């Protein structure tokens, strides 16, 4: 049994991998502000923020097979809470982020509890309607910008004011670093869950719900756990977005933005956190690139459309999946070459 025990020992996550990730993040945090112009630093900042939302979409779809088209509404709700509390209280910014995450967590679970009984197309439609409803509310009330009352929009003689960024991230470069650190924490939380018992439950549910139940998994609870986790991180992304410019525009939280978010996740890769980073870049940095090149902004939709067809037909694991396959192939070949 002792020999077998050694062979069967669970593969522990290599600490080396974590060291590499921290190292790469440190380089990005230092290099991006040093190398790029303010225009690009801002673009990368929103890319990283959206990457957090993409990771949530990817977890729900890639791990549980749940199509949620309502995630952008949760980003909006998180942003709303941060703006509201930021203008109305003197709580430190990290507390605002946590409060936003908890608020969206509650809303996500409340909507999700009945919606989880649905699957496939029905769930997609219900969550899209959820996004539509919130979009209407955002449009009607506006986001808090220093006005009075519960909703807090500036009206009449009150001048709108922007929320201040946290003191650690006042400059664009500083805020970029701040966002990278918060995103790293969110990704670490997702990775930690994916590697543990929750991740195993999601994997078996994805394969077969009956198989999961037969193994004793409380599937409803496990899905709710995913929803709560994803709603939290998505709300934090909203909080980061709110403090980026200090104001939010209802036009950024429409159902079509929600669909676009889902599309870039499919293109970038729904099965890995790296895919979420690619998706964030596709959704935010890519339009910047096109506008730098002087291409019409709507051309991005054509690019996404074509990439989506490519992803759905030949690369179900997205660009991240293709890169991963390339790297494994290269690795195998170097090993064989020895």
């Amino acid at each position, binding site marked *: *049994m002792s020999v*077998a*025990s050694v*062979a*069967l020992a*669970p*593969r522990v996550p290599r600490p080396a991998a974590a060291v590499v990730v921290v190292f790469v993040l440190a380089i990005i945090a230092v290099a991006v502000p040093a190398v790029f112009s303010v225009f690009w630093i801002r673009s990368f900042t929103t890319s990283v923020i959206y990457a957090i939302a993409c990771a949530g979409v990817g977890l729900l779809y890639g791990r549980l097979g749940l199509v949620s088209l309502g995630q952008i509404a949760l980003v909006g709700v998180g942003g709303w809470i941060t703006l509201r509390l930021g203008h109305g209280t003197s709580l430190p910014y990290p507390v605002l982020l946590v409060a936003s995450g908890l608020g969206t967590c509650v809303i996500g679970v409340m909507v999700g509890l009945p919606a989880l009984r649905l699957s496939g197309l029905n769930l997609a439609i219900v969550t899209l309607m959820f996004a539509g409803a919130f979009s209407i509310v955002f449009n009607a009330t506006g986001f808090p910008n220093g006005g009075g009352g519960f909703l807090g929009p500036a009206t009449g003689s009150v001048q709108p004011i922007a929320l201040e960024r946290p003191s650690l991230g006042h400059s664009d470069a500083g805020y970029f670093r701040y966002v990278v650190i918060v995103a790293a924490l969110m990704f670490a939380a997702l990775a930690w869950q994916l590697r543990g*018992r929750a991740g*195993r*439950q999601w*994997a*078996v549910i994805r*394969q*077969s719900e*009956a*198989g*999961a*139940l*037969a*193994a*004793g*998994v*409380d*599937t409803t609870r496990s899905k709710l756990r995913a929803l709560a986790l994803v709603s939290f991180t998505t709300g934090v992304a909203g909080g980061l977005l709110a403090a980026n410019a200090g104001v939010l525009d209802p036009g950024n939280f429409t159902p079509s933005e929600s669909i676009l978010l889902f599309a870039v996740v499919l293109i970038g890769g729904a099965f890995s956190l790296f895919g979420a980073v690619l998706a964030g870049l596709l959704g935010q940095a890519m339009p910047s690139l096109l506008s730098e090149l002087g291409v019409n902004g709507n051309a991005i939709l054509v690019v996404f459309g074509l990439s989506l067809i490519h992803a759905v037909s030949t690369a179900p694991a997205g660009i991240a999946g293709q890169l991963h396959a390339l790297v494994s192939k290269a690795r195998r070949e170097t090993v064989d070459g020895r």
Partner: protein
Amino acid sequence: MLRVRDLSVSFGGVMPLDDVTFELPDGVCGLVGPNGAGKTTFFNVLSGFVRPSAGAVEADGTSLLSMAPHRRARWGLRRTFQQEQVVHSLSAYDNVRIAADEVGAAGDQVREALAFVGLDDAQRRGRHLTMLERRLTEIARSVVGRPRLVLLDEPGAGLAEEETERLVALIRKIPERFGAQVILVDHDMELVSAVCGNTVVLDFGRVIALGPTADVLSDEHVKRAYLGTEEVV
């Protein structure tokens, strides 16, 4: 000991189980019958995936039907499926751990279950396992922790003859090693005769024979209803 009383299931007009009553003693028991006889439906009733229109099931003195499906598994009801259900993206080890997590079994129990089925290199992912290794992984998942009633739905399907022999040796050992009752569904009569002390025969929702396996399989009714069609198939 498994007690089934007046159990009926209807899917629209079809009655895959029609007022079925029988008892199965501890040890390994066989459940046989032609295709569509209601064997898998019976397992699905025990698992809680199919709600019977009438009847009761008592295992080890516990009424199963009032428990939620995942609670039955935690109580000790385990099963495999006709279609293998190994998770492709997880290692064999983690596949067994899925059940171990839920029933509160520790790492050494996972290793014990894997050692029991003789699966070496449990770090390979589900998608890289052979059919035999997948069946073995599923059996390990069904016995990890404290199983009380293990349902095996055609575990020998898709296996070569010498692989089936390995399965026979394994299934036989489950009651003694883990203290669980086993119910085996299979079309391979050699497999059933080799491991099952008692066997119940279903035919279109009704029990047509029940008793020691050798007696049941030589019964004229059974031969006509089941073995006859088997030869034709």
